[in-house]
């Protein structure tokens, strides 16, 4: 029973939300199609002759393509690794009773709070000693410090929401705990796993500080590349926005594909 008036308000609000979310993205894309002169026109122009020059330059002259591939390799690997380590841990936290469980959970979460600035230099020196500077593996590992907590947090809650009956039924049939996790609980926790994977991917893909400090060229990530155009001497806005667009698009595609899962997986423990 909704009155016409409330419907109208809803439509307005939703339209506003959509506009606000989309507009900056729209502006980023259009700016990326402008030449520097057009980009700096005041007042800004809405209609202009688009050029792909910025993309050409970014991709093929400045090596953004390679950093995108680096970011992809790193974000995908670290996400998989986080899931590989995090899902069993989440299962244990959700299903087993043991001493110090709550503290362990909180410790996992705490890692998400550590500022990268604290870890960056020690990690830099350690990586240097192990010859791991400017290597993908270094970032893949250090990104665990914020991915693993997110995976554990979200997936633990999903596991908690699965009826314990199912575990028991499977145990009666002779399934090991590992089989129960893999065959019974994991498929059912998929929304949460998907969401944690999305966030893990987004966070890793977007990470700047470690990327800036721990890589140089071989493993340089896309965000680190984008800010490297920010020389105080010269701000090539079109190229920066083209790079930005290139950075945002993959993660956007990934997130949009999985957006159906987003709400179902984000209950953060509301299951009771």
């Amino acid at each position, binding site marked *: 029973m909704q009155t016409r008036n409330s419907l109208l308000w809803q439509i307005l609000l939703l339209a506003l939300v959509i506009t606000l979310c989309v507009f900056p993205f729209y502006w980023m894309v259009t700016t990326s199609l402008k030449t520097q002169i057009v980009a700096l026109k005041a007042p800004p122009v809405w209609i202009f002759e688009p050029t792909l020059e910025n993309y050409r330059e970014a991709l093929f002259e400045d090596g953004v393509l390679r950093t995108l591939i680096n970011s992809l390799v790193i974000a995908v690997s670290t996400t998989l690794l986080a899931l590989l380590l995090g899902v069993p841990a989440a299962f244990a936290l959700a299903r087993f009773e043991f001493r110090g469980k709550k503290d362990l959970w909180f410790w996992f979460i705490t890692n998400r709070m550590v500022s990268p600035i604290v870890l960056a230099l020690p990690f830099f020196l350690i990586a240097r000693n192990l010859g791991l500077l400017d290597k993908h593996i270094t970032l893949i590992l250090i990104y665990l410090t914020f991915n693993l907590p997110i995976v554990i947090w979200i997936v633990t809650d999903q596991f908690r929401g699965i*009826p314990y*009956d*199912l575990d*028991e*039924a*499977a*145990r*009666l*049939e*002779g*399934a*090991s705990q590992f*089989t129960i996790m893999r*065959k*019974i609980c994991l*498929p*059912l926790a998929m929304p949460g796993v998907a969401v944690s994977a999305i966030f893990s991917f987004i966070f890793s893909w977007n990470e700047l500080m470690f990327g800036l400090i721990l890589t140089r060229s071989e493993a340089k990530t896309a965000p680190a590349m984008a800010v490297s155009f920010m020389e105080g001497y010269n701000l090539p806005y079109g190229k920066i926005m083209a790079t930005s667009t290139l950075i945002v698009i993959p993660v956007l595609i990934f997130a949009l594909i999985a957006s159906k899962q987003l709400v179902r997986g984000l209950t953060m423990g509301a299951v009771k």
Partner: protein
Amino acid sequence: MAAIEIKGINKFYAGMQALFDVSLDIKDGEFVVFVGPSGCGKSTLLRSLAGLEGIDSGTVSIDGQDVTHAEPADRDIAMVFQSYALYPHMSVRENMEFGMKVNGFAPKLRQERIAEAARILQLEDYLDRKPGQLSGGQRQRVAIGRAIVKNPKVFLFDEPLSNLDAKLRVQMRVELESLHKQLKATMIYVTHDQVEAMTMADKIVVLNAGRVEQVGSPMEVYHKPVSRFVAEFIGSPAMNVFDASALRGVDLDGQAKFAGCRPEHFEMAAPGRGNLEATVTVKERLGGETLLYLAVADGPNLVARVDGDDETRIGATISLNIPPHRLHQFDVNGRAIR
């Protein structure tokens, strides 16, 4: 196909005792029904048998072998959960196959058993559906099918029909009975449904607050309840139990404090000639039968079950007889007097 021996089980939950010294002998191939009020420990006992719940003292043996500390999977038991506990992401076939798969059965054998179970349970057309696409009754059958294919020594059913409507319940009950005949396995069945308990059981176990109150055949617990608790729990509507002093002209035991009579056992007497004089206050017509709610002056309120076509009017005063062999007597502690 196994005998089960339970000796002196005690079970605590966080300091609260759920089972008190429970002992039971279950014969090979017997169909045993656990009944009792909510929270009395039925599920706990079942789960202890399955090994899903650790017990604090006592032993469980199956076929003479002590399994008290065995893993659930090693007890050769199948359990049908009240909530079905079907794996929602697996098809009917996969649900049935899962247990055999993890136990390393050959694919051919698996398919044979599934086909056989599906035939018995008339699930052939649904093998590729997910549980979410099935009706309640069909889900129930899948849960049973999952138990059957395992071909276990012992079946445990925890209120397996409680979610079905009346019609489906009757169907399923008959199917389970014929299954029992066919497989000759030992079956333990928890229910709070009177009809199920009475019709299916070889042996009924009445539990009360974690203790075994009575063990016996359905007719035994119906006709010879050992206590007021059992008398009032078995039968629907429940037995009328009232202060023995309300009865006239009946030969009572000296110890008898309470008397009881089932609603269906009252006989109409000529006015003034019965053991009780009562007024009809409410009349419930159920079609095939009618319930009369009766008030005895200064005495108890009673229910009598009479014919569906009974013409007694509300407000009428009637006289009731209790045939001596229908009269139950209980002492001050509620124990039956024989």
